[in-house]
């Protein structure tokens, strides 16, 4: 999105995106890659529902079903939901706090490419002897015994993409701590920035246990370790603990930014200040904190004993309190507001009852005795889909429509958007509401089929029909995106007309340096304040027009991530192929040499000169 519209060749555009360190372009990369993985995960979901539509089905075999199920969960969590959230964080947070970029533009690019190569590596398993098949939780007691290389792809692929996530988390933390515009105090930060901040802190402290867990698995499976080998003193429960110490905060890593998106959308379209701002901030931080205290509620049936179960049960129930605070604050924001029913607002309205339903079933499972009954049934499947789809995916779709004009200076079609919403909303409830009852009727999760005499036929069929609605909704959404891009009608600044925060105050398309002059933030909802006071420019400035310092583009992050991708093949085939160890070393060499190159070569960036800014040339691009 340069100031000067120029037609570039495809190669030039590709090179631009491979080397970019601009947070707005990296946001687009995350959006595209996350979107593709979302479609792949969705296709896997459809295969699951086709298989389960009728009893005794042989559409896919049992082993293949396990692979599809594992890849559906893993793809949706690691390769779709998180990257899509990172897309919005990248696109919005720097603009929202009045920064010219993130704190570490180079690392931002590295984080993306590591996620991308990790995701590709994981999905290559389909073509190289079979995908992982031990569920997305990959419990060691299952995964150590899994034949073939599926689990190896899982462990190595997630290790690489997890590294990228950790880098992104640190980057957002530093950006928010250090790069807020003058006047943007912590208690004036928009809620999306706040939730990004807390979610990034969760990434920072939750991903290392996953890293360790995956390393233990890699060592056990590829380098003759014995962490999980009980014959030599190992213990598979270690994996369960490490995985859930990561896994539970992960739920909040996904949910909090989605809450943040809704906390932007609801005040915008209720045209009222967010109710209880400080309570919202406090609730966000508290949810983040409590998120680390509850991991063992996934393990009630492991046999930790009554005391541990009781402590984790109570801690889990406590999370309902700050979450409830948020729900009521959203409702009270709308109360007495002049609500405009746009597509993002419809998602926000659909989100509240859906997510409350998911939260209520969560509290049900928090009581350990009941969990013994519900554990590993379809009740659990229904619960976490209510949380993840009703909370996170609704948030992503809402954010997609809401922030599309900010990212692309054009608006998705509202009619098609509303059709997408209704199809998706109805399909979602049709698919998953009934699964609660399947669970109560005793249907275990992760089974590839069931008998006609078990009484689960009708509910499963209804569930599968619901999934079709969701699939059609996604097709309509894709059509909407293609039509919008083809039409490419520019919308200009503040396209929703009621923007409240800084990101809407910037002229569209957003210049590649974001702010010509750093803005002065005069309160919560700063753009709203400026508009109320009749300020045509939309911003008060904190500085005169000056030279702007910009980072250089670089291909090194791409090469660094590619080295890890190559090395992972070496690790995967260790002890099996003669070329394995040389390839492992080669891959690590590529990565370390490019790290060395990065370290040795000064990267001082460049300046856009004041004169070029004033005559709107925008300098070098």
């Amino acid at each position, binding site marked *: 999105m340069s100031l000067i519209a120029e037609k570039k060749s495809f190669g030039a555009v590709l090179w631009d995106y491979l080397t970019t360190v601009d947070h707005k372009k990296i946001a687009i990369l995350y959006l595209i890659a996350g979107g593709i993985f979302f479609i792949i995960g969705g296709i896997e979901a459809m295969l699951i529902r086709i298989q389960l539509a009728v009893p005794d089905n042989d559409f896919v075999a049992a082993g293949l079903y396990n692979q599809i199920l594992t890849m559906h969960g893993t793809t949706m969590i690691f390769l779709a939901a998180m990257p899509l959230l990172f897309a919005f964080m990248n696109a919005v947070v720097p603009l929202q706090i009045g920064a010219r970029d993130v704190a570490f533009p180079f690392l931002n690019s590295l984080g993306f490419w590591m996620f991308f190569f990790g995701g590709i590596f994981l999905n290559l398993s389909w073509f190289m002897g079979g995908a992982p098949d031990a569920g997305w939780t990959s419990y060691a007691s299952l995964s150590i015994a899994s034949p073939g290389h599926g689990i190896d792809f899982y462990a190595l692929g997630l290790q690489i993409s997890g590294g990228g996530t950790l880098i992104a988390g640190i980057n957002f933390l530093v950006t928010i701590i250090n790069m807020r515009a003058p006047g943007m105090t912590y208690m004036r930060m928009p809620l999306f920035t706040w939730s990004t901040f807390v979610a990034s802190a969760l990434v920072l402290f939750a*991903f290392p246990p996953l890293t360790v867990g995956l390393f233990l698995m890699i060592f056990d499976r590829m380098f003759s370790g014995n*962490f999980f080998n009980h014959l030599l003193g190992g213990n598979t429960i270690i994996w369960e603990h*490490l995985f859930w110490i990561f896994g539970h905060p992960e739920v909040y890593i996904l949910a909090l930014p989605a809450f943040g998106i809704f906390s932007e959308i609801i005040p915008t379209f209720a045209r009222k200040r967010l109710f209880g701002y400080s309570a919202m901030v406090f609730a966000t931080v508290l949810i983040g904190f409590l998120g680390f205290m509850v991991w063992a509620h996934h393990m009630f049936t492991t046999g930790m004993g009554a005391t541990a179960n009781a402590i984790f049960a109570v801690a889990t129930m406590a999370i309902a309190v700050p979450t409830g605070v948020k729900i009521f604050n959203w409702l009270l924001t709308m109360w007495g507001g002049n609500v405009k029913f746009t597509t993002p607002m419809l998602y926000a309205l659909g989100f509240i009852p859906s997510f409350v339903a998911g939260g209520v079933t969560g509290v049900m499972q928090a009581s350990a005795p009941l969990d013994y009954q519900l554990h590993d049934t379809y009740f659990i499947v229904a619960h976490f889909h209510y949380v993840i789809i009703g909370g996170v995916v609704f948030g992503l779709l809402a954010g997609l429509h809401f922030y599309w004009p900010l990212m692309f200076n054009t608006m998705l079609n509202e009619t098609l958007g509303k059709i997408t919403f209704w199809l998706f909303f109805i399909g979602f409830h049709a698919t998953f509401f009934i699964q609660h009852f399947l669970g109560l009727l005793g249907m275990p999760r992760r089974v590839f089929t069931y008998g006609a005499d078990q009484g689960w036929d009708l509910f499963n069929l209804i569930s599968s029909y619901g999934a079709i609605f969701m699939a059609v909704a996604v097709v309509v959404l894709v059509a909407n995106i293609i039509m919008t891009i083809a039409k490419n009608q520019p919308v200009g600044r503040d396209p929703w007309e009621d923007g409240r925060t800084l990101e809407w105050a910037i002229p569209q398309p957003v210049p590649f340096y974001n702010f010509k002059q750093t803005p002065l933030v005069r309160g919560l909802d700063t753009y709203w304040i400026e508009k109320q006071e009749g300020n045509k420019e939309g911003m008060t400035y904190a500085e005169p027009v000056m030279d702007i310092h910009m980072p250089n583009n670089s291909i090194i992050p791409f090469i660094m991530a590619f080295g890890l991708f190559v090395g992972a093949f070496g690790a995967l085939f260790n002890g099996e192929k003669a070329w394995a160890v040389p390839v492992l070393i080669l891959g690590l060499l590529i990565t370390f040499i490019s790290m060395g190159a990065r370290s*040795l070569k000064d990267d001082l960036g460049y300046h856009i000169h004041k004169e070029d800014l004033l005559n709107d040339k925008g300098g070098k691009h």
Partner: protein
Amino acid sequence: MDLNSKYTPQSWPEHPEQATLEGKNKFVGFWLFLGGETVLFASLFATYLALKNKGPSGMEFTTQGLFELPLVFIMTMLLLTSSLTSVYAMYHMRNYNFKAMQAWLMITVLLGAAFLGFEIYEFNHYVHLGFTYDQSAFSTAFFTLVGTHGLHVLIGLGWIILLMIRNAKRGLNLYNAPKYYVASLYWHFIDVVWVFIFTVVYLMGALE
């Protein structure tokens, strides 16, 4: 950033590592990274404690029989001293005394390399006793925890050496001062982790 501006000890800022926005970002970002590293080592410690002395029935290796405290004590002293010398290096960086800083970093590197040498000797010794990586859950957990620390030492050494060579000719400026500073932070962190390894693995292992 202008690399050509010349400083004197008088004009050199008091906190050169945080004098620029890039420096401030590096400073905060690296502290946060160390927070993540702390959780990483905590997970490895927990794993080690769960698997300590666990192995096939009738395993001959125990922490009491295996560890020799004099060797580990020497290693501890080497690494603690290297942490002190890196403090001296940072003291001279703040005083814009490039040569003294490089010299103290050199001593830090030598002490770190000596530590690493002892660790290689120790691992080699264990392997010759038959306590190999795949011998038991205990051996796997031990080599993974202590080895991960050793890998950190190795990376730290490579990092500091690279910095010293790269900047040998041009001296200190506000671009490389934050780099030196975070490398020394990393070195302190490695030292702190070793204090825990010395206590939890070796002292608690050999004495209990």
